[in-house]
């Protein structure tokens, strides 16, 4: 995590990021739920403004209620309890491939100005510096959801002009690229980082800083970004998590495993 110049606060940046993720989900949307912070964001959204959101999990789970106990992974047994549907991965992901998923969330190790993500090979495939776990479902979520949201740590070596390997396609090399390669829809809509929130210019498809987290300056963001970052004229500050949101989050992550300090 990036070091922050923070004043005293009663929330963690992970909590702030989860809260921001939750706010990206509208009620009744179909959400393809990933692991970790995105999973918490979905649970938080369902508990607040999006009670009728439906979650689709690549393990072959669809559920529209909360699990009865905190879960650490999508496959934890409470996540099966009273699921709406338990089925095969190919069928659950069929919903995604059809275009039936409104929004998905993806974590990343390396991202570039057009929102392409690398979670496979740092340094490229011939001179592998670091082998990361790989796509999992991320490439599919980035390819097939109607929009996807990236959540990651904001560090200069992670925010690079061009990723070493495209695991999960963003906007490629700019506007028109997705159509050109044949992706049916979608693209990244938002990047939620440890420092701020970024969106994509609808003409150039380049990442643009939209808000900075409390205690974070514009300069801190640009210094931690590996290309000359565009900044929205009406740059705002990311809203803090409310007390209610923090209270709810504590129930989902009682040990602070994902959102603790």
């Amino acid at each position, binding site marked *: 995590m990036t070091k922050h110049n923070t004043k005293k606060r009663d929330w963690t940046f992970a909590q702030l990021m989860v809260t921001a993720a939750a706010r990206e989900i509208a009620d009744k949307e*179909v959400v393809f739920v990933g692991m970790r912070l995105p999973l918490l964001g979905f649970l938080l959204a*369902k*508990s607040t403004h999006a*009670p*009728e959101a*439906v979650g689709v999990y690549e393990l072959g789970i*669809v559920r*529209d*209620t*909360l699990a*009865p*106990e905190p879960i650490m992974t999508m496959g*934890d*047994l*409470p996540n*099966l*309890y*009273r*699921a*709406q*549907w*338990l*089925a095969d991965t*190919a*069928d659950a*992901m*069929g*919903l*995604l*491939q*059809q*275009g*039936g998923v409104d929004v998905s969330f993806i974590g990343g190790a390396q991202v570039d100005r057009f929102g392409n993500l690398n979670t496979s090979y740092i340094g490229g495939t011939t001179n592998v510096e670091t082998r990361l776990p790989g796509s999992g479902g991320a490439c599919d979520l980035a390819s*097939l959801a109607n929009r996807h949201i990236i959540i990651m740590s904001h560090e200069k070596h992670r925010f690079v002009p061009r990723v070493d390997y495209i695991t999960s396609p963003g906007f490629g090399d700019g506007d028109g690229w997705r159509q050109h390669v044949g992706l049916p829809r979608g693209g990244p809509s938002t990047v939620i980082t440890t420092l701020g929130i970024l969106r994509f210019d609808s003409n150039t498809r380049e990442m643009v800083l939209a808000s900075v987290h409390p205690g974070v300056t514009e300069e801190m963001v640009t210094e931690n970004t590996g290309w000359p970052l565009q900044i929205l004229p009406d740059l705002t500050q990311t809203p803090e998590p409310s007390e209610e949101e923090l209270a*709810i989050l504590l*129930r989902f992550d009682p040990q602070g495993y994902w959102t603790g300090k």
Partner: protein
Amino acid sequence: MFLKFGHLEFDTVPKSKLMTLPESIDRFVPDGSSVAMCLCLESLIPFAAAHEIIRQRKQNLTLIGPISDILFDQVIGAACVRKVRAAWVGNVITGSCYNFRRAIESHSLEMEDHSNLTVAMALRAGAMGVPFMPARTALGSDLFKTNASLKTITCPFTDIPLTAVAAIKPDVVVVHVQRADEYGSAHAWGNLGVTRDACLASRHIILTAEEIVSPDVISRDPNRVITPGFRVSAVVHYPWGAHPSPVPGYYNRDHQAFIDYRNESKTPELFDGWQKRWVDNIQCYQDYLIALGEKRISELALKHHVMSETVDYGY
């Protein structure tokens, strides 16, 4: 319905999708629709829903299914159908169906000739969100002549010839199930045919159910759920809604009804009589049960019960 999480309770009241059969057909089967039915092949055939389609005199429908037993023939006989995309249209225990024959032989019905596997793969392609699926069947057959949804292609990996089967994405699928809740979650069991694929491939799903049960009954066994409830448009309570086809757990096949239908559909005049008696004179399932008669109902009831072992979804 309350979603409970620790001490928090969220009051979300999902909208009930329970409606009458006429309302469900009126809303989700407009004229010109493509309608998938008869997806378990010989069982759980949604006869009640098809009869409502006839009563509402729908026009220019496209019927989709692998084999239909006598259901497609009835809807064709009532002049609701413009096109059929199917592998087989007939009467399983007697052979040819007469309305279908008359319609094809008089060139008043368009036919897309499938095999059971190409229908299954076309619906699976629709379910999986891909525009086609490759198959190894039908090569060299004349199905290619009477089915523009089939083309030959070459495998990009092995260079062998393959049949490309175009996806089928019905406007609406009509499925009869054993039990459903009012929100669209349902259990079905037995031989499921292409039902699950067809539900995923279709824009709207109409469920007719032997029983409407508490959501609790369904959600205690999510592996048995036929398709995600959030995608279901209408739930209709209609006991005996698949008669004369069999419904596992509820009633056996009424063979005599299929034999009778053969005789009662030999001419258009005979069919008119059949339609008046078994379709137009029926307004609800109670009417139908009266027409069937108690003796027949008790003869078709299950005589032997074989109950599944429970499984635990605890944590």
